[in-house]
């Protein structure tokens, strides 16, 4: 309902809506243009071809775009804690998490999802993959689990903002930084970094692991093959942990009283 309200409010200024949606679309598009420019100078990056990198990019972009569309407004929480307007959400008879997520719900973020899907579609036409039912089924599973993992990162980041109200940029490092990282093949990065985003902050399950299965490439860190099918479990676990962090954060909340 709150989301619906925000959609109606943006639709009041259709031109502005079109412009910002297009802006969101092109903002992410430029990332891909940069990758294409890189490939105008080389044939492979970390041993991966352009369609393969585009496949990673499209998956990461779609999953992140969906999460951003659903609860991207979470990054605004720090400001609400600072200026005390979080209090109005606390007294309403609805879950605070849902309210914060729907707060300033911006349909323009659809631009990001569309761009991710377009790149993914282009990659699929160029990839040389022998498709099996399992691989096909894995695609929507990847998108949904990836979205779940990114949602967990958003919620955990928001929970952290209860403690450090001014530090919303730290969240950007994990959300935007995370999706940028996943746009490149795991072979590009140092082993420790890959270990970190596999075992500590399990971003590797968004696209790296399932994508290596689909593309038939060697697994990063010599992980067992079944890890490609772990994303749903990882997503559920992440969301549960993020939910706990959120409740702890909310309990520690002291209003500014202004």
């Amino acid at each position: 309902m709150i989301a619906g309200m925000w959609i109606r409010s943006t639709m009041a200024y259709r031109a502005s809506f079109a412009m910002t949606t297009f802006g969101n679309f092109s903002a992410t598009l430029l990332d891909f243009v940069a990758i294409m420019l890189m490939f105008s100078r080389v044939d492979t990056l970390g041993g991966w071809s352009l369609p393969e990198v585009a496949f990673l990019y499209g998956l990461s972009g779609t999953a992140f775009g969906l999460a951003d569309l659903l609860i991207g407004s979470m990054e605004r929480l720090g400001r609400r804690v600072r200026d005390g307007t979080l209090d109005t959400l606390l007294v309403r008879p609805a879950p605070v998490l849902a309210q914060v997520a729907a707060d300033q719900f911006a349909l323009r973020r659809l631009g990001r999802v569309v761009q991710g899907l377009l790149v993914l579609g282009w990659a699929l036409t160029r990839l040389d993959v022998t498709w099996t039912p399992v691989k096909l089924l894995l695609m929507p599973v990847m998108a949904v689990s990836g979205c779940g993992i990114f949602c967990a990162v958003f919620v955990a980041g928001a929970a952290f903002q209860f403690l450090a109200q001014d530090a919303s940029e730290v969240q950007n490092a994990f959300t935007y930084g995370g999706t940028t990282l996943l746009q490149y093949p795991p072979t590009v990065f140092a082993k420790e970094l890959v270990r970190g985003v596999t075992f500590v902050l399990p971003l590797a399950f968004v696209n790296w692991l399932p994508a290596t299965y689909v593309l038939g490439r060697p697994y990063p860190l010599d992980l067992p093959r079944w890890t490609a099918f772990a994303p749903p479990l990882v997503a559920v676990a992440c969301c549960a942990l993020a939910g706990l962090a959120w409740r702890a954060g909310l309990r520690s909340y002291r209003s500014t009283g202004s």
Partner: protein
Amino acid sequence: MSAGRLYVAVAAGGFRRYATYRTATAAGVFTNTVFGLILVYTYRALWDERPHLGGWDQAQVMTYVWLGQALLAALAIGGGGIENELMERIRTGDVAIDLYRPADLQLWWLATDLGRAFFQLLGRGLVPFVVGALCFPVYLPRDVGTWAAFLVAVLLAMLVGFGIRYLVALSAFWLLDGQGVTQMSWLAGFFCSGMLLPLNVFPGALGAVVRVLPWSSLLQAPAQILLGHGDPLGTYVFQGAWAVVLLGAGRLVQSAATRRVVVQGG
């Protein structure tokens, strides 16, 4: 108070104001370092494939990455300078108060932005750069002259950056809602300044075009000098010319805005 001292005081105020956001600064340092790390590895993969791409070796590229992270906030390449505040003041009509001040609107905001830029350079730029220089095999010039020449280019970059963003902010006199323009401006800034990919890696005609646009003054120009690839004098002329053009345009737009536009009351 003489005009010169007034603007120095305004700049000092800008510096101090940003210095109060300590957690935000620390968060920014962290984020810049993380993004620097990601870029280091992707560029390294690129240069592994094509050594000496764009005339740089790997060590020079590493320096470029950390320089980009160091200058990002100072030059407000991704936005976040004083222009948001100025736009808000134009939208609400508070700008009328600024116009009544016995100071020039453009110089006042330039001084504030320079104060902000100096703080961001020290507060948010230095740490990622030092961390990067300690953890990766970077290229650093050994002679003081190159560093001095580089700092002059950074100063000119601050003027050009302000020139662009002042024009963006003034568009609010006509558009009121500056969101779209701000977004377009940071897209252009990010892409054309070399934040996404060094401009000397851009192929062919596209590369030739982006290198003459004003945004190349922001990151690429100081970087070329620091990496020993730019002729300082030629670079200064290029940056200076863009600064004069942009600040001059800002002045024209400003006078048009104050003459013709009715300030919003409220």
